[in-house]
Every structure is written in structure tokens, then in C-alpha cells.
């Protein structure tokens, strides 16, 4: 393994579930306000996974009061506390950008498996 690969692998996060586009995840993000720190939870559908290893990022989309909201997270960022897999979704694409154009029932993704999501 090259030195650069070793450095990159040392910053990899452990305990990230194996999820794909179409799955619903819950991202626990650390938010710093002054010297206080709190956890903000963002739950939505993974519409894209990009990059590999230390550089990987995910785009999560949800509907907030009828408005589509998307957030891109760097999976290995120290600001990500944890990522929880909620549901597996059945989709035919790796990038679900088409969801941006859809409304209502058309945005619904068939759920395959449900994971233990009783705790918040």
C-alpha cells in the first residue's frame, strides 16, 4: 500500500452501514454553535453516492413541509457522528436525480427491508 493510501485509510470511518441509492438513512450531524455542540438529524433518501474511500460523499433528499431539501454529506467527515440505515429501497438506478422532477406518489420508493429504527 502506498503512503498516500495509508494516510487516506487512516481517516476512514468505521461503523458506516452498507447502503445504496434508494435507501433511507438517518444522518447524525454535529453542529457547532459557539462553544456548544449539538446533534442534528437529517433523514431522507440517498439519491447519490459519489467518490471512494476517504473522499466518498452521499446526497440525501427529503421533503420538508412539501419542499424538497437535499444535503450532501462527506461520509468520513469528523462532523458526521453516525449514519443509520432505516429502510432498503428498490430502485433501478444508481443516481436518483429524477426524483427532483417528480411529485407526490411518484417520489415514493418501494421499501424492501426495514431496520431497527425505534431509537432516534
Amino acid at each position, binding site marked *: 500500500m*502506498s*503512503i498516500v493510501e495509508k*494516510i487516506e485509510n487512516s*481517516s476512514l470511518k468505521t461503523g458506516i452501514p452498507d447502503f445504496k441509492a434508494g435507501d433511507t438513512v438517518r444522518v447524525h450531524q454535529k453542529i457547532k454553535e459557539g462553544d456548544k455542540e449539538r446533534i442534528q438529524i437529517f433523514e431522507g433518501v440517498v439519491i447519490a453516492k459519489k467518490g471512494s474511500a476517504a473522499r466518498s460523499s452521499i446526497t440525501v433528499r427529503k421533503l420538508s413541509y412539501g419542499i424538497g431539501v437535499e444535503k450532501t454529506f*462527506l461520509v*468520513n*467527515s*469528523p462532523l458526521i457522528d453516525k449514519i443509520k440505515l432505516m429502510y432498503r429501497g428498490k430502485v433501478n438506478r444508481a443516481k436518483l436525480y429524477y426524483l427532483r422532477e417528480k411529485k407526490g406518489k411518484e417520489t415514493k420508493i418501494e421499501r424492501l427491508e426495514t431496520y431497527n429504527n425505534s431509537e432516534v
Partner: protein
Amino acid sequence: MLKAIIGKKIGMTQLFNEDGAIIPVTVLKAGPCTVVTKKTLENDGYGAVQLGFGEIEPYKVKKPLMGHFKKNNVNPIRILKEFRCSEAGSVNIGDSVNVSMFNGVKYVCVTGITKGKGFQGVVKRWGFSGGRDTHGSMFHRAPGSIGQSSFPSKVFRGLKMPGHLGNKSRTASNLKIIRIDSEQDLLFVKGAIPGANGNIVYIYGANEFGRKKI
């Protein structure tokens, strides 16, 4: 104190800082270097330290250079470079210096040989705009006029013309030190440095203006 070392460019990657932001970094193998010889104000009129970096099989060393190593009683070394240092008296011949010399230093400058680009035109070499590709412009990537007929009736010296690009010694100044790994002799600096991966570079501590401090 000496604040310069010979190193090797390993490559670039990115690191997270504590705010979660991504910093582009260049990883450098800095040292360890051996002090091969030194020059002092009394003997040579200036103070300097000659450092050596990298291993070499003794049979590959030319005899005159081997004599230089033998005189100073050090093992043969591949790369030799003299660094100006007013306090050369503080180090001894045969000493090993490593990247921990940059502990407490915030910024460094890195000198390396840029990648050679070969013979290039004015658009790539000097950033000329060139002309329009279509609509019969008949002027694409040519340099254009390089002077007038009756006056000045010559081409000025130093005019930007096509020619060899790259493969020159260049210094990237004021690079922030992100991390120092003394165990593996690695130095992480923010941003890019000249040259290809694996090239030999010279790393200098920076002064308060971000310039090479010797």
C-alpha cells in the same frame, strides 16, 4: 538553527480539519538527512551545511565523490545539497537531521523542478487568448504580430514566444504545515508543490513574509 531539508514528493491527498473542512495537502518525505560537511564564516567566508539524502550503492559513486564522503567519514549518499546557515557551528558532521526541525514552524517553502511540457505555443506557455476557431477567422493559436516594420524594425528582447515550457526550478512559497509525522519522516503541507510525484524537493522554513528563510 538550520531550517532546511531535502525531501521527496510523495503525492497529494486531502485531510479533514477539526471544523470538518477538507484541506488539500501534499505529502512529502522529508529527510532524514545526514550532515556531510559544513562551511563556516572563518574558513570559507560563509556559513553553510551540506546535507545528504537517500541511499546509494557504493559502487555507483564516482571516485572523487567517494573521497569527499571518506574525508568526512559518512556513508555514500545519493543527493547532496548545500544550504546556507549562519549557525553552521551548531551541527556536527555525520549528524542526522529529520523533519522534527520544523516543529513550531508554521510555514515552509518548497523548491522543486516543474514537470516538463516540451515545446509549447504561446497560448499554453504565456496564456495568449488566440483567435476564433470558426467563421473564417484564419487566426487560431498563432502569436500574432511580434513588431512593426520601420519602427522599431526589430523584435524586442524577451518577447513572449513559443518555446520550451516547464522543467524549471520553481519555489512554492508560504505553504502552511498541516501535520508533521516524525516517526515516518512525513511532512504535510497545504496546497500543491512543483514537480511530479517522486521528485526530489528542497524544503525551507519560511520567514515572516512567507519567503525562503536561510
